[in-house]
């Protein structure tokens, strides 16, 4: 019965390439079996909610590509290397925290600055959590496993910094028990003017289900906006207020931001391989950009010693979008 | 090999065989002095079962048995499964019903 | 004339098998078709004994000359085949 068949050098779908496949390609490509039939993602519930959801928001997205599986993460991260990378990064952050704690760093922070940290920093765990949720959405809705993986690591990075914000919240509360650290963050996130722009942006992003629009709203508008103010501009304020630790933490976080931007660039380029996608992508940037700018402006209005923060951040987001070929 | 345990209401970890598993099994006896502790070696894995519905493992005890520093989170590297509910602390881990 | 697939439970076998028969086939034909997939393959032959067919869940076998059409069996219904 059995026909002799020659062994393969690698998975058959990778054999067309001339070169030896990398570990990344072996373990990351073509894993979404539910894309095999665009009409029926699942063997059960053919008319059910989840089949409709995937048909509508993934398979029938207005952004189309003949080869989603051809997308590659420019960092070629796999699970194994992600942990090696981030374990090293976390060791560095532990070192920063340990060293500054030993030196009594927080005791030297002026009261105006600790008030700013309460207003602009410790409530950011909520914002980071929404980015984490939004990235997890992209993970399970993307049309290719290579895209899903980038989104998964982005979700994990968000949890990473959410955790560090929580850590700092408690640490600051210990040294400055009367400021309100660890007590007022939810109230500030829900009501303080600094956060309402980001809150609206993310609540609307989280209820946007077309996977490609969700990607644009998150990775082209919302996350760049958040990173520019929360990391870069608040980092500048921190330096100007003598908070070396905070400045160094934001620089450490920026590495994850840069990685996020690298795959965002790669995915937008991949999408733009089909010229027909350009108009839709641009119109989404135009749709979301005002919310992004409003979020930056509301937040940056509270930045101490940093009057140019809003302008800088808006300019940086626009410059990133220009780099993507998608001007808002 | 019998599938049923001789201890009643057993709880505890199931560990990949090796040095750490041995140290943890010994620590279980030290940390649960009033309970019957049964260690069943299945070759590739070891079942540690403490009767009475509670098993406590202390980091300090494992370090003593192991003769080196030990982070409680390291236990996860070899803990393939466990019976009972779990409560994970930095210095102590508890299985209970 | 129409092909009707039936689910055959041949006594002594471990699995139900798909057996396509013709609506004009008699029960002896049906038994032979089922036997072709079981006897000497998964079930030992019992030479000299007659094969009978009954519908699963009934006690009495069909008459040996009953046709599939007359039996009222619907596609993929289960029949039991056994040595009498």
């Amino acid at each position, binding site marked *: 019965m059995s026909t002799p068949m020659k062994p393969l050098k690698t998975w058959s779908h990778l054999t067309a390439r001339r070169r030896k496949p990398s570990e990344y390609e072996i373990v990351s490509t073509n*894993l979404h079996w539910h894309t095999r039939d665009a009409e029926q993602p699942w063997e059960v519930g053919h008319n*059910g909610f*989840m089949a409709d959801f995937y048909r509508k928001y993934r398979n029938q997205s207005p952004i189309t590509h003949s080869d989603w599986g051809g997308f590659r993460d420019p960092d070629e991260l796999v699970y194994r290397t992600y942990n090696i990378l981030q374990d090293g990064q976390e060791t560095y952050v532990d070192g920063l925290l340990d060293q500054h704690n030993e030196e009594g760093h927080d005791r030297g922070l002026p009261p105006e600055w600790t008030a700013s940290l309460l207003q602009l920093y410790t409530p950011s765990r909520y914002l980071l959590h929404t980015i984490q949720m939004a990235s997890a959405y992209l993970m399970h809705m993307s049309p290719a496993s290579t895209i899903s993986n980038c989104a*998964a690591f982005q979700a994990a990075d968000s*949890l990473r910094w959410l955790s560090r914000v929580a850590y700092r919240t408690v640490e600051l509360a210990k040294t400055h028990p009367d400021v309100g650290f660890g007590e007022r963050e939810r109230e500030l996130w829900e009501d303080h003017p600094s956060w309402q722009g980001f809150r609206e942006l993310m609540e609307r992003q989280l209820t946007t289900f077309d996977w490609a629009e969700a990607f644009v709203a998150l990775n082209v508008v919302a996350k760049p906006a958040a990173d520019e103010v929360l990391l870069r501009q608040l980092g500048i304020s921190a330096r100007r207020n003598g908070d070396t630790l905070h400045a160094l933490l934001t620089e450490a976080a920026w590495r994850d931001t840069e990685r996020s931007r690298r795959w965002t660039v790669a995915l937008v380029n991949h999408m733009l391989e089909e010229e027909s996608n350009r108009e839709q992508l641009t119109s989404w940037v135009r749709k979301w950009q005002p919310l992004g700018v409003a979020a930056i402006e509301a937040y940056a209005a509270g930045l101490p010693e940093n009057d140019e923060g809003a302008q800088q951040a808006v300019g940086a987001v626009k410059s990133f979008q220009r780099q993507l070929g998608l001007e808002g | 090999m019998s599938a049923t345990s001789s201890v009643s209401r057993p709880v505890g970890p199931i560990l990949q065989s090796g040095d750490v598993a041995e140290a943890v099994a010994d620590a279980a006896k030290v940390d649960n002095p009033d309970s019957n502790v049964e260690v069943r070696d299945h070759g590739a894995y070891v079942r540690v079962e403490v009767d009475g519905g509670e098993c406590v493992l202390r980091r300090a005890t494992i370090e003593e048995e192991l003769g080196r520093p030990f982070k409680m989170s390291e236990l996860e*590297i070899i803990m393939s499964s466990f019976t009972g509910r779990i409560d994970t602390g930095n210095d102590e881990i508890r299985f209970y019903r | 004339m129409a092909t009707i697939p039936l689910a055959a439970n041949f006594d002594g*076998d471990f*699995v*139900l098998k*798909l057996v396509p028969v013709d609506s004009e086939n008699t029960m002896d034909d049906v038994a032979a078709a089922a036997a072709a997939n079981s006897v000497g393959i998964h079930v030992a032959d019992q030479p000299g004994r007659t094969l009978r067919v009954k519908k699963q869940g009934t006690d009495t076998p069909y008459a040996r000359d009953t046709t599939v059409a007359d039996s009222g069996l619907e596609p993929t219904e289960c029949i039991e085949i056994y040595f009498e």
Partner: protein
Amino acid sequence: MALMERSEWYDVARDTEWTPRYVTWEELFPPELSGGEGLPDDVWRTYDEPYKISYREYVDVQRQKDAGAYSVQAALERADIYNNADPAWISILKEHYGAVALVEYGAALQEARFARWCKAPGLRNMAVFGMLDEMRHGQIQLYFPHEYVKKDRQFEWSHASMFSNNWVSLGARHFFDDMLMTRDMVSTSFCANFSFETGFTNLQFIGLSGDAANSGDYTFSKLIQSIQTDEARHAQLGTPLLQMMIENGQRDKAQKEIDISFWRSYRLFTILSGIPMDYYVPLEARHTSFKEFMEEWIVTQFMRELEDLGLSKPWYWDIFMRDISEHHHGQQLGTYSWRPTLWWNPAAGVSPEERDWLEEKYPGWNDTFGKVWDVMIDNFVNGRTEKTVPGTLPMICNLSQLPIVGTPSQTLRDTSVVYKGRRYHFASEVDKWIFEDNPERYRYQKNLVDRFLGGDIEPADLGGVLEYMGLGSIGPSGDDAHGYSWVESYRKQLADAG
């Protein structure tokens, strides 16, 4: 201490619930995705994940786990398991990777859904680790078999099986799509975290690891146990949800979902674990039977967890307890008989010594399943090989997608139901019960026999079926793992007797 312990700040990190203003709570957490309908809104913040870990600990511990697993692989490549192990062991690897690798990755999407849609913020955080865990399991279980694809084309199925129409793949897709991919978050957690991961994965990933070590395959033994250390953590996500349901008057609903997923998992594992444990593992390494593993991990350990929660044994407990001694024997006969439909080379596992083992573990085996093997062995011994592969298809269950088998002359029967003009067949009363509980979920799916009879498979013969299932294109058809060498002892018996 200059660095704080996790417990000092952990509660702040999971305190991320907020009241949306620009969209509604229902828009943020649609009931079809989030589940938990009927539970009070304020119950979600009481969710307390039992197995806590921080991101910092996670990347440290997981890096160490991978360093261990990958280094064992490197060290043991010299041992050349592929050429030195019993061929049946290699078949276990082929079956395992083909059935497991991509669905593990699929489970990462399931965990990602938890991270997005769960209304409990603590669970959303832990699900991020669950998502990463399942990426690990998908990736590492593609990496390891990829080494073998250069030696043996059948390992191509490790990557390809879930895209194919092979009947085993259909069964796996149907199961995983049902359990992991298409239910709301809460129901999925019961099916995936509780029944599947707290219960059944132990069987394959710890039970089989013992057999692997006994067979000399330490790479695989370490790999699957290492995978299970992740499962042991994220499987815990479901338990507090179950408690919340029970405490809020939804015990019956929770019980039903456990009953459904428990049976579906069990039947899948008869193929994945049952057959290899009792027939493929080389006899000298085969100490514990599938039934004994079931008794250790499921009947004893898992049932204790269920009862601790105040849930009951499934209503079909008596059926189940009988089934663990018989169903997988029928599936072994089926897979071996239709071996050209497999992506791996099955071992028969019925040499005289192995039959003694089977009879000891399953008294009465020789008089039931053994009788069928007698007929097949007679054909092999007398050179009638063509009669050892049936010329028709087995009837296939419209739920499990597995052949409908039973103990010869005892329990083999059809269980069928007509729904909206179509007749559906089931491998048991329980499968039928699951179908009838929600026929709209299952009614449109066509199993292999439906496709064959419906004209989807051309030509409509065994050759056409094999081609449809990817045999001969993805990889070669399965054939006896040992090249029928085990038949020799029977041939000798015949010669001695004659």
